[in-house]
């Protein structure tokens, strides 16, 4: 917001100075308003499907299946029957439970493998460390959509075909590389002095890692846990390819397939499932946003 300075400040009359000030103030107000407008538009653009989903999930059938009705308001009274339908008449709860325990196990496996690996790469300066770091990054880029066919074969060889355990086994391949990269960043942020102090105090390297480094990196670790869990809940193609029986499905595959009976879409329940799953995760994510950012940037800086 450059303001043209009409003359040397020294030779400007007080009146001219005052006029410049008002001009600046107006410009600033304008900019401020503009910012709010754009922010609100952005929020609306992003959230409209959800806002609308939330409204829809409470709509009566007669209200919903009427092309003339305003989709954004309740033309008839709202009802919670579709939500209860979701829980009582569909396997939604099963799907949710499956997603949860798969998530927990996958996160555990991820941390067990990724934490030591990240520590090794971040701290123990082996000459091949940076090369390996890059290799891990590359692995992350080999997508499920490339591997799912051969993995389907591997899964059936292992006898895990149609079992949710196949997901517990396979998902870490998605989460571990990312977790290593993020954790590398968080671990690098822990000052070496503290570790070295612990070692001087008598702990072994492993001891220092366990008792000092991990507690200090805990906020970052929590962020990685949430991120890994989110990745697990998102995953679609493996779940679709490996698990067919409905009792074993997760939310990601269960909802689209099971809540559609033939040609009939249970739209309100479908929307409800989307909202009920997304909102809590988003809430937690929002709280941890700053942590993720630190993690991303630190992971990118090689020292």
């Amino acid at each position, binding site marked *: 917001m*450059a303001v043209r300075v009409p003359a040397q400040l020294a030779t400007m009359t007080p009146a001219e100075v005052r006029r410049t000030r008002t001009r600046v103030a107006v410009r600033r107000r304008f900019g401020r308003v503009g*910012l709010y407008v754009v*922010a609100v538009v952005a929020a609306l*653009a*992003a959230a409209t*499907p*959800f806002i*609308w989903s939330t409204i*829809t999930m409470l709509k009566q059938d007669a209200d919903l299946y009427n*092309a003339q009705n305003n989709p954004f308001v309740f033309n008839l009274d709202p009802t919670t029957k579709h939500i209860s339908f979701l829980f009582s008449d569909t396997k939604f709860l099963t799907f949710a439970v499956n997603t949860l325990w798969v998530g927990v196990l996958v996160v555990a496996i991820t941390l067990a*493998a*990724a934490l*030591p*690996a990240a520590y*090794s790469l971040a701290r123990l300066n082996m000459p091949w460390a940076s090369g*390996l770091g890059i290799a*891990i*990054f*590359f*692995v992350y880029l*080999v*997508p499920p*959509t*490339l*591997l*799912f*066919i*051969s*993995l*389907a*074969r*591997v899964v059936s060889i292992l006898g895990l075909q149609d079992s949710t355990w196949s997901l517990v086994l396979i998902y*870490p*391949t998605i989460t*571990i590389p990312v977790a*290593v990269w993020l954790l590398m960043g968080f671990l690098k942020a822990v000052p070496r002095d503290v570790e070295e102090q612990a070692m001087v105090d*008598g702990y*072994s*390297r*492993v001891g220092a890692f366990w008792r000092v480094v991990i507690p200090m990196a805990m906020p970052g670790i929590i962020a990685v846990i949430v991120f890994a869990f989110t990745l697990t*809940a*998102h995953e679609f*193609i493996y779940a*679709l*390819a490996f698990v067919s029986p409905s009792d074993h499905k997760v939310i*990601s595959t269960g*909802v*689209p397939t099971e809540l559609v009976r033939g040609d009939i*879409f249970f739209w309100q329940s479908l*929307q409800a*499932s*989307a909202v009920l*799953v*997304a909102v809590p995760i*988003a809430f937690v994510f*929002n709280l941890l*946003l700053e942590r*993720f950012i630190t993690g991303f*940037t630190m992971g990118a*800086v090689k020292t």
Partner: protein
Amino acid sequence: MGITSLPASERRALSDREGFLAPLFLLPAVVYVVALVAIPFFLAIAFSLTDVTAGDPSLDWVGFKNFDDIFHDPIFWRALRNTLLFTAATMVLTVVLAKALAMILVADFRFKRLIRFFVLLPWITPVALAAISWLWMFDSVYSPIDWVLRQPGLIDGNTHWLARDNLAAISVIAVQTWRIVPLAAVIIMAGLVAIPHEINDAAAMDGAGFWRRLWEITIPLNLPVIGVATLFGAILTFTDMTVVYILTRGGPDNATQTLPSYAFFKGIGGGDLAQGAAIALFLFPLLLAAAIAILRSVRKMETL
């Protein structure tokens, strides 16, 4: 805290030897990844060179026959073209929108947390569920979008978003952009925050207005980060089959088929594992190029 006196001997305990620890710590992760990524990767290559199907699990060598079949398959070319097109379009939109969004997210204003919450929702919702919401938004009869457009009389009746080739493509691109912009914005935000604020102050002192600061300082300094965000987004777009699967199943009539979705339909749907694998393998060169570009960008970031 027990302080153990160190033994007089020179030998250090295993738990101290870094030469031993470093590889040991890496072992679980490496084993996991090699076993469940590298092996399937090579297996996929093997599949593509055989005639394996769901019904006939034996691996009989057929050379490049599968690739030959694919090259003669017009749907494959359609899928390839779509993959590139969708990705390019999504990326262009994403860069512009994510940059703007990132700048909003770093600014300070009331309700910032709330706005941020909403703005992140598209990325955080599991793709499948988000796609389902959009499925209704694009419904042939009840689409809310159509309803909104009907009010001021912009259209009459319904736009069959998912039933017409071009509109279906636009719908897929729209959904991809919608879900990727938040992620890209967060990455770019990280970059914006990393610029020392004194540089912005100096630019203000030097009389640079908003737009000049944007073009001459902020964007040039953030180019690597923007690059990384774009490439991440690109990878997420062209390796995604979920959106296509749920919105259009690749239709209408294979108009929105992409490499991943086609690979899925051929491989798992049609049981022709060999061809599915062959199709999916085409993703790899694209990914490699993207990965190298990302690394270059990251390296550039460090030299500033």
